[in-house]
């Protein structure tokens, strides 16, 4: 062996040794996260993870940005099938049922037990409306991270201009139609709501719930109520807004288009997520205000947002590390900070007891309205094949908004399609008789 090769070997051995050093002390885990609102949230999330990595020595988290909610689900499931499951994933809160049924995510009950706490104790600090989406079949599967509800945003100048009192926003569907008729002028529409995939299903859930309905069976993943009076009424209402009252443009507008129309004064009232609060606050030039989603039968809105889940197939060590990271991400302080940064509301009640949060709410009364609507919040729909079942409704409602179908027919067809999609699950459960 020449001296050069020996030196080389020595250097190589040294590199291995130093590279191996932190390995025995540190557990490396991966955390997949989508960016639900805009690019700067990705930066903030990366900053949080870096802060965590620097705060302790046992766990090193790699934050992996994974596109939108649907891409995140696709990537996490594909990685798990290929034998590289991520440890922790920030997942759309209504994917839990689906992911549990496919065996991709694990129950968090063992972690609660190891921490010597009970599920009830653990969930006590989270808003009651969030519990249903955190659990599947009575066990904890997801820890809520950021949440939202739909909210009515309205242009105060437009209200004054047509003689409406901005302090008294429409509370019922009747008042909404009235106001929207007055507000519609020239190329300005009185009302607008996003109708792209995901958003439309969520808003139709809000309307059917405000109409006394439930949208889906919270206890059982094989039933949706698309052709029931509550949804039929909601569908007819949207149809009327477009074709009878002519206060909403015909066709499908995506969320980006809705907020832009609102900023540009082309739409006076819009239904958007509370998750858009910061974005609207920063970009809206004219004075605006927010209000509850108007109701027909009762006040009710669905929860939206995302929760942290853990994937199956990881080592015990990795599970422990992942759970540690989840606990750090969901402290009242971290959740409060994230809430102020994004506009989502914090899932923990105690976040709102912190002085920074009290200051923030005092300065931003619109955030208070979002919080006040929480007691009326209900679970987000989650069924077997959640996305496909949701699209069954969305496709039909979009056809209706384009004037290609009548509301009555649309909900009937949506129900038929949804039933077909859920058939395999139903056959394995409710219809499997002794």
């Amino acid at each position, binding site marked *: 062996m020449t001296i050069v090769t020996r030196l080389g070997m020595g250097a190589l051995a040294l590199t291995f040794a130093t590279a191996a050093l932190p390995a025995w002390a540190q557990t490396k885990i991966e955390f997949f996260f989508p960016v639900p609102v805009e*690019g700067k949230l990705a930066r903030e999330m990366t900053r949080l993870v870096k802060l965590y990595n620097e705060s302790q020595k046992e766990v090193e988290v790699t934050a992996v940005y994974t596109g939108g909610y649907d891409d995140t689900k*696709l990537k996490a499931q594909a990685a798990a099938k290929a034998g590289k499951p991520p440890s922790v994933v920030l997942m759309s809160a209504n994917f839990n049922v689906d992911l549990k049924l496919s065996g991709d995510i694990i129950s968090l009950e063992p972690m609660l037990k190891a921490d010597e706490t009970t599920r009830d104790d653990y969930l006590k600090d989270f808003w009651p409306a969030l519990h249903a989406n955190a659990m599947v079949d009575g066990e904890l599967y997801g820890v809520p991270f950021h949440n939202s509800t739909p909210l009515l945003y309205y242009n105060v100048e437009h209200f004054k201009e047509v003689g409406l009192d901005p302090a008294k926003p429409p509370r019922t569907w009747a008042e909404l139609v009235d106001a929207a008729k007055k507000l519609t002028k020239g190329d300005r529409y009185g009302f607008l709501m996003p109708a792209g995939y995901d958003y439309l299903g969520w808003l139709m859930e809000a309307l059917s719930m405000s109409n006394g309905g439930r949208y889906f069976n919270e206890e059982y993943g094989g039933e949706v109520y698309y052709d029931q009076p509550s949804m039929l009424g909601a569908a007819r209402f949207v149809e009327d807004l477009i074709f009878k009252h002519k206060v909403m443009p015909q066709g499908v507008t995506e969320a*980006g288009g809705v907020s832009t129309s609102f900023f540009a004064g082309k739409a006076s009232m819009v239904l958007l997520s509370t998750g858009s609060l910061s974005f609207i606050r920063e970009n809206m030039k004219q004075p605006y205000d927010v209000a509850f989603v108007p109701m027909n039968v009762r006040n009710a809105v669905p929860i939206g947002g995302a929760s942290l889940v853990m994937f199956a197939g990881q080592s015990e060590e990795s599970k422990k590390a992942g759970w540690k990271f989840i606990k750090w991400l969901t402290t009242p302080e971290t959740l409060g900070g994230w809430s102020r940064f994004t506009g989502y509301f914090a899932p923990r009640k105690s976040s709102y007891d912190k002085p920074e949060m009290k200051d923030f709410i005092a300065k931003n009364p619109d955030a208070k309205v979002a919080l006040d609507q929480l007691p009326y919040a209900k679970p987000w729909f989650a069924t077997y094949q959640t996305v496909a079942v949701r699209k069954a409704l969305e496709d039909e409602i979009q056809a209706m908004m384009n004037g290609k179908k009548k509301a009555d027919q649309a909900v009937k067809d949506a129900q038929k399609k949804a039933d077909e999609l859920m058939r395999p699950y139903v056959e394995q459960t409710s219809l499997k008789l002794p």
Partner: protein
Amino acid sequence: MIRVRKHLSVALLAALLSAVAFLWATPFLWTLVASFRPESAGSADMASLLPDLHPTLENFRNALESGTFGIYYVNTIIVVTGVLAVQCVTVSLAGYAFARLRFPGRDFLFYAFLLQLMLVPPALIVPNLRTVVDLGLYDTLPGVMAPYFASAFGTFLMRQTFLALPRDFEEAAAIDGAPWWAIIWYVLLPMAKPGLVAFAIVSITAHWNEFLWPLMVINSPGNQTLTIGLASFAMGAEGGKEWGVLAAGTLLVMAPLAVAFVAFQRRFVDSFVFSGVKG
């Protein structure tokens, strides 16, 4: 009189073509204008094609800050050139085999090969990812490239290109005692260059713009490609759109390709026009 009419029809044609070209270029124009518009998320003239009187670089600064674009560019260039380099070898050899060699089942094999074109890539995500993990290429750039090393489209294109070349040249070389590889390298490939260039354009644009597969394979921020960086502006689900930043980011991603196309436009057009046929 006739001359006037001729002039008129030429002018009319030019006007018509300009109108079509303008229509086609509208999205690019809008992207260009919007990327320099200050605070375009909220302004009422967001949709306007007229440039703002006070252009700003703010959007570009925001876009560049939201990711490590330098690394994204390097990674994308590595992926695109790596894929192309291997593809050039595999598609010309496979194309040669299907065009010139005689072996049993050749045509059947060729058609079976073409069937690949019918498969939708997303259907192969999980099996491909499994293979990449087994090969130890997960979360590496070679893992992003691996599935594209063989190309059905490229093989088809090169086979057709070779078939169109007269055999005389090869026979002359063979009589002079050239082995098969020398025939390919010195005789066939130089004549098939337009075909290769045409294929290279298709390959480069496809892999430059690809989103889903790199997203699946790559985890480490240091290995991410441009499209994933861009997605962080474009994927907003619940909020609004920062149109200006989105436009600036889009420009940043497409600029190198656009510049290359303009620079080599003549070559490209020639390649497509003369693709393979010159005897």
